[in-house]
């Protein structure tokens, strides 16, 4: 019995490594294809966006979380449900702006950067930029336009990894003309 459960936790951990290693191979490939870090960051963000617009469906199907009433609730759901579900970590939500439209997600550890070191010639690479795209894409599908970026990154020497999220506006649902 205990041997069985060892296997399961092992295989969950191995799956995480598969994802981490695949992500690493992807970033390496992008760095090879594109000359500068800015372009790589942009590509990662775009790919993240494409993933995010699909991931939100998976998330809503699995979590049965209802509609969030305000941005604060959104922040909590992202940190406590979404991040926990997909990455196994629970970042803390802090640094709310006075207007309540901007906050930070602080992660002690970032599973994407296990085994990763940034070489010196890639100092402006935002390695985990995919995450920003994912958050942006996912929230856009629930009618929220947000701006997401990394403000601190352990790979670049900071103590923690911090993602800053800013609410821009609510996206109005536009029904195409002629729809009942």
């Amino acid at each position, binding site marked *: 019995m205990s041997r069985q459960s060892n296997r399961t936790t092992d295989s969950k951990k191995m799956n995480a490594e598969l994802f981490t290693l*695949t992500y690493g191979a992807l970033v390496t490939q992008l760095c090879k294809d594109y000359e500068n870090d800015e372009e790589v960051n942009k590509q990662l963000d775009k790919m993240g966006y494409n993933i995010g617009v699909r991931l939100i469906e998976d998330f809503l199907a699995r979590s049965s979380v209802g509609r969030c009433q305000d941005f604060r609730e959104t922040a909590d759901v992202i940190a406590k449900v979404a991040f926990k579900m997909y990455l196994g970590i629970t970042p803390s939500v802090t640094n709310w702006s006075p207007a309540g439209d901007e906050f930070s997600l602080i992660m002690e550890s970032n599973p994407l950067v296990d085994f990763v070191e940034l070489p010196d010639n890639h100092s402006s690479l935002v390695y985990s930029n995919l995450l920003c795209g994912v958050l942006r894409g996912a929230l856009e599908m629930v009618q929220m336009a947000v701006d997401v970026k990394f403000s601190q990154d352990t790979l670049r020497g900071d103590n923690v990894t911090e993602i800053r999220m800013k609410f821009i506006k609510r996206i109005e649902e536009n029904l195409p003309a002629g729809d009942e």
Partner: protein
Amino acid sequence: MADDVLFEFLHMEMVSHIYKDQASRGEMEKDRATCVSTLEGMGFRVGQGLIERFTKDSPSFKDDLDVMKFICKDFWINVFRKQIDNLRTNHQGTYVLQDNKFALLTQFSNGKQYLEEAPKYLAYSCGLVRGALSNLGMDCVVTAEVSLMPSCKFQVVIQKI
């Protein structure tokens, strides 16, 4: 801890990106092969890394067949959440691994629809297997064929020096 679905989404996006990228750089035909080899190369490096993590505490394998059985069982379970359904060999260095419900193809179709697109989504996995075997001391060529989704066959041909 990362959910399996994250890998599937990432893989889907990777394939889409590599193909879109090559298309935008012109030259259609030549680049299809490049796309496949790019994906396969990525899989190769990841496969090498993964197999090191999986087997660092296990005893060494008795022979090639033992290695293939490991790939079919433990490796496949860890990566694709199920075992290989059928392993065949001619005992002369060629192995065919059949997976009747390949994890990366289940969302595609249940038959012949989208058959032409399937190889793109198998290149990375072929690389994974080749990388894993390479780090276990077996140089080989891995190809995949699919005739009825979501079932597919991986053919491993061991290269004798």
